[in-house]
């Protein structure tokens, strides 16, 4: 018998493959190789400043998932956004403090996509320079001061 984390992830995967969400695509092959590492492609929504761009999110899960939040960061081309650091770290409270096991990969992708959609200006966070030089490799080790309450 597989561990609960793995069972949960298989269910989430099946759900996302049978009922895909608009603008969110799962790299099935990568997941098939290792259920604990997902690559999800996010399309910038129409009529937003990211229209026509695609970005990749990397999810890593540990054996305590879903009681522990997944580690989520952008890889490759990093969207320029006031809550996304140039090293791919995302300042989003549901990824750390406000995570609950009732959330899911799908819910995280949706929040990130709507965070992108609500932006009106392409700019990095004000502390991007110093943060990216000093932070831990793991964004979960950062004690975030959430930039505002709307995220």
């Amino acid at each position, binding site marked *: 018998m597989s561990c609960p984390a793995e069972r949960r992830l298989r269910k*989430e995967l099946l759900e996302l493959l049978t009922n895909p969400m608009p603008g969110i695509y799962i790299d099935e092959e990568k997941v098939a190789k290792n259920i604990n590492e997902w690559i999800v492609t996010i399309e910038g929504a129409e009529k937003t400043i990211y229209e026509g761009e695609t970005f990749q999110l990397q999810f890593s899960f540990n054996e305590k998932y879903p*009681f522990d939040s997944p580690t989520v960061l952008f890889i490759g081309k990093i969207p320029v956004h006031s809550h996304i650091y140039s090293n791919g770290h995302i300042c989003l409270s549901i990824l750390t403090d406000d995570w609950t096991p009732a959330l899911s990969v799908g819910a995280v992708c949706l929040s990130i996509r709507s965070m992108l959609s609500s932006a009106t200006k392409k700019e990095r966070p004000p502390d991007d320079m110093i943060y990216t*030089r*000093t932070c831990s490799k793991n964004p979960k080790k950062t004690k975030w001061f959430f930039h505002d309450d709307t995220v």
Partner: protein
Amino acid sequence: MSFIINFIRAVLDAMLELFSFGRKGISNKLPIFVKTNTGKQISLNLDPEWNISNVKRLVAPSLGISPDEVKIIFAGKELEDCTRISECDLGTQSVLHAVKSRSRSEIETKSKKCLETLFDDENVGDVPSKPLSSTLVDLQLKGEERRDSESNIKAKAHFFVHCPECKKLCRGKLRVRCNICKGGCFTVHRDPECWDDVLVPKKIQGHCESKEIACMSDEENGLPFAEFYFKCAEHGSGGEKDYAAPLTLIKMNLKKVPCLACGDISDPVLVFPCVAGHTSCLDCFKLYCISRLQERQFISHREFGYTLACPVNCENSFIQEIHHFKLLEKDYYDRYQQFGAEEFVLQSGGVLCPQPNCGMGILVDENCNRVHCQNGCNFVFCKICKQGYHIGDCLPESAISNNMSVSEFSVNPSRVAGARWDEASKIAIQVTTKPCPKCRTATERAGGCMHMACTRAGCNFEWCWICQTEWTRDCMAAHWFG
């Protein structure tokens, strides 16, 4: 006249039945005890196919009365003549109680009863009925659930306990006794309908026939109260003193609710005491506890003890009955107890021994800075700086490693051999951990930032590794890293 004939016939029947044991063998017989209120104890082997009237005929001679006059009481209820033994949820070595009916009219109502079981709604109090266990099936259900489950469970009650004997989650059985004499020959006046009826003392009255003179209480009507308790249903009954803690959050998953974490539908499940009734399978519950335990995220609740709330962070969802944590494997449960004790020490103003591999909780004298790890490693240390005890002001952090010899160790010969290793790990621990400036819990530094956050539940203090005070914008500017 007919009474005497009946009596003789009963004795003969009883003897025949006793002889028939020899012929049938003992394969599926259930050994039980019958206690009388005259102090006798009779051991019997019952055929599960028999009904209570058979039992009465077996017991009547020892009481010197006719079977009609015998009342059989089990788990708080008088049992009807036509109830089959197999319906009674008796385990081997269970104890039934047999008493003489107090009045003639009681006997008459009773003999009619069996024919009219369908109409026994009035007069519920004293009327013999089904065994308590089967009337309790829906104690854990409410309203609507009760209706739709009636058809699909004819089964027995499903209470769960942590059994100290089997050392695991077991099906439990509810039992009742008199709150005055603790005797089990007790009839309840109404069925318990919810957990409160069972767990809160003095909710339900009844009468006690354990002693020849009925027990009386100080209440207005003089009746004693029912005292409910739980036993494990999975090992042979260890007699009347064999208790187990009820796990009130463990339920049969009749509604087939998927686990909030893994999504599987399993049975039984743990339902958190939040309004939403968030449901978790037992594997995921353990996982949840372990992950919170490792991060010291359990909460010391003033009323309930060291506990957790619903993982979805619902309000008012603390687990009140901490026996639920006994579901953890022994190592984790031990850690749970240790952390719980440490938390208690910290909250009562005590300190934890700073020696690596010790961590003993020590309650301290408010006016004295010298702390002796008396029941642990014997280390003597300063309450303020957590270094070896010293006279005068605490030394700055950097001076300490060079000045170790100044500290006064209480020398314990058996520990001298290990001292070098202790010394080495003491230096190692200074490099990687520092106490939280607020609660003094050792915190490891992870990653490159100097920005620390105490992981201890209820503290969460954000502090600076360099200044060892609260993290400020100045810290970011001056030494965020490096």
